């Protein structure tokens, strides 16, 4: 009867931040998985080169392949020492089956092999490519930019990984940002943070003491990682003398990696992620090797794989749910959400919680970070009128999921938009032209 009787609870318009995975302790290292799956591709179409074959012995940090096309070809490194089990197609967390290298651990922990850049290329783009840091090099090297924007806000309610990185590695974040600005000769950078996070702002201010050109910009609410365009506009509106076309967002997790690649000569083989959800007894931030299967990390945190009903890469608002627990951590993975939930089928659900008619309450419109009308676009998509939906801004949508979160009629707007983007994209564009 919840939802039927009037309650005096004031419903949240943005999801409340879970305090379980507080970032007041350093990330727990988990650096010795029994096996890793290292994807060589992002999508099944992208090109790659594999340098190892089955039964080869590899060392942690050894280059095992290339990803992408020259001139911006990224190196792929083995993240643990051991024997290559197979090179085959494996599920990636983005929902594809891609070519991956499976390495079985030799059991003992090795130090990561250092990069050996060509002389004279120590502080150039080649080092970053060789370290395998995924950045938009085409845009960075195009000499079109004058502002780098780092989104330090944490949009996902269940994750604290951005905050953890800033709190723990503030100097490396700043160092990596400065190195990027130097390499690509970009005059200024902006780091955005929630204004309420006083501890983080203090930590960053300390690290920023003797740096030039980096601004700290507190913002009032958090922005999703896909919404960098909105954030850039919001920040640059204050009159920093730049236009949004000449700014670019940088993922915060790649900044410590840049720092380590340039000053410590280590490739990007480990990153910080948040492990949380109802299926994990001890949710916390962890430092893991790239390629560790999700299942192993969840077991390490005390989760029981047999009881889980849902494994999600990312957070509860924008994550991708996984069909298998064997999907590996990639360099872009921000967190794992393991859920044990009682999922009721439609027949057993209370009628209150089933989808109802849109009553135009405008909560989705008020919450939308890109100021489109989700209710109107959703209605068009439901009727397969994709041309109108695109005209109303279907492709402006950044899939943040807030409209579904607040919708009292329980219309799955996020799902509708995702489906419409893939299904109606081509058709609508053809009709438009």
């Amino acid at each position, binding site marked *: 009867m919840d*939802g*039927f*009787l*009037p*309650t005096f609870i*004031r*419903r949240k*318009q943005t*999801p409340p931040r879970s305090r379980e995975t507080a970032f007041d302790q350093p990330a727990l290292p988990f650096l010795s998985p029994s096996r890793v799956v290292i994807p060589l591709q992002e999508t099944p179409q992208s090109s790659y080169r594999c340098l190892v074959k089955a039964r080869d012995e590899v060392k942690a940090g050894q280059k095992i392949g290339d990803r992408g096309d020259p001139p911006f070809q990224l190196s792929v490194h083995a993240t643990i020492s051991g024997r290559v089990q197979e090179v085959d197609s494996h599920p990636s967390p983005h929902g594809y089956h891609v070519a991956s290298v499976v390495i079985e651990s030799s059991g003992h922990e090795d130090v990561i092999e250092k990069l050996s850049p060509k002389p004279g290329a120590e502080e150039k783009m080649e080092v970053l490519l060789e370290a395998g840091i995924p950045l938009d090099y085409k845009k960075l090297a195009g000499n079109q930019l004058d502002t780098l924007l780092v989104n330090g806000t944490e949009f996902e309610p269940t994750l604290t990984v951005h905050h953890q990185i800033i709190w723990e590695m503030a100097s490396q974040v700043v160092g990596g940002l400065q190195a990027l600005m130097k390499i690509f000769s970009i005059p200024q950078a902006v780091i955005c943070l929630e204004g309420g996070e006083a501890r983080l702002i203090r930590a960053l201010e300390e690290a920023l003491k003797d740096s030039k050109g980096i601004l700290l910009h507190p913002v009032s609410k958090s922005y999703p990682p896909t919404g960098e*365009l909105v954030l850039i*506009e919001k920040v640059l509106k204050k009159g920093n003398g730049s*236009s*949004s*076309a000449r700014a670019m967002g940088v993922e915060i997790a790649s900044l410590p990696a840049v720092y380590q690649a340039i000053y410590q000569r280590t490739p990007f083989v480990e990153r910080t992620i948040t492990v949380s959800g109802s299926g994990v007894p001890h949710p916390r931030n962890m430092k893991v090797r790239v390629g560790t299967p999700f299942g192993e990390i969840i077991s390490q945190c005390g989760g029981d*794989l*047999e009881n*889980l*009903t*849902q*494994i999600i890469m*990312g957070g*509860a*608002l*924008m*994550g*991708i*749910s*996984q069909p*298998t*627990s064997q999907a590996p951590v990639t360099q872009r993975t921000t967190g794992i959400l393991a*859920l044990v939930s009682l999922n009721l089928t439609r027949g057993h659900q209370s*009628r*209150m*919680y089933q989808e*109802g*008619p849109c*009553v*135009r*309450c*405008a909560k989705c*419109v*008020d919450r939308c970070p890109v*100021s*489109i*009308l989700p209710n*109107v676009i959703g209605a068009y998509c439901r009727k397969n009128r994709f041309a109108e939906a695109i005209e*109303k*801004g279907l492709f*402006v949508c950044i*899939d943040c*999921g*807030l409209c*579904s*979160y*607040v919708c*009292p*009629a*329980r219309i799955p707007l*996020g*799902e509708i938009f995702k489906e419409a983007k893939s299904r109606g994209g081509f058709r609508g564009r053809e009709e438009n032209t």
Partner: protein
Amino acid sequence: MSNRLIVATPPYIKNGETNHCLMFDVWVAALPMILTAIYFFGPYSLVVIFLSIFSAIATEAVIQMLKAPGYQFRPFLYSLLTNEKITIMDGSALVTGLLLAFNLPPQVPFWLPVVGSVVAISLGKQVFGGLGQNIFNPALFARAFLVAAWPAHMTSWVAPFDWNRWLNQISSARSLWMIDAVSSATPLALMKQQGTATPYLDLFLGNIGGCLGEVSALAVLIGGAYLLYKGTITWHIPVTYLGTVVILSTLFGRDPLFHLFSGGLMLGTFFMATDVVTSPVTKPGRIFFGIGCGVLTVLIRLFGSFPEGVSYSILLMNACTPLIDRYTGGAGLRRQTLGALKTS
């Protein structure tokens, strides 16, 4: 892998709100107004409210039975409450009936709220396709209909109820519900016809003649504050509506406080104009809506032939809502187009 993982699309969380919450929030907010209606107009106001709500729900159930293809009529309450095609449990008919009762004078004949509710649900809502599709606020639509059809009944106001006399003369069944009331006029009519002003305290507390729900500005303000707290309505329409009325009436040389607290302005602002279905969805649109309502209200009150203009002004602005939405929506889209122009 022994267990099977569920694959779904994000987001995986919801804030737990339902359409029912929105509707029943209005009920909670209306409680002080129901109490003041009973206090000032006697037990008969309860009869009016009950008849109005009951006939609204019955009309909705009957229409949805007729609309559902192949619905076999089973005269059990259980089948009425659980059938998928009959949505009387979503609370929207309850709210429409209640708001219609708030718009009626206290001593109307018993069939007037019944007719009003039937019109509100059938012609005001279900004709357009049910919940979420109607252009006009159903309760105000029915009120306009009743005013046009039975103007004598809809403009016979009475003075506040005399509880002492009622206690002394409970003898027959009829006198349990109503006593012979002293007829009186609303403060706005008094102002328009005779130029006499009513004391502010009476206006604020509700010791005046008027419709059931509109007499006490205090009760409406309490309810409105609850709605604002729950987030069912936003501040845009109330603030702009009341602000426009205050500014315009001051400009025309009238008493702004009198116009603020008299008539149905408070009720209309917090419960009618903010009706989610018939108000614009964008924030700038809501501001335009509130300003438009305020301008029309003041114009009708000061220069029209009716003493009161809140209901007509809201109905007129409801008709403009699709247009307002069309021209204020899509700020993100305009921004994207501008960005594309800048880049090229």
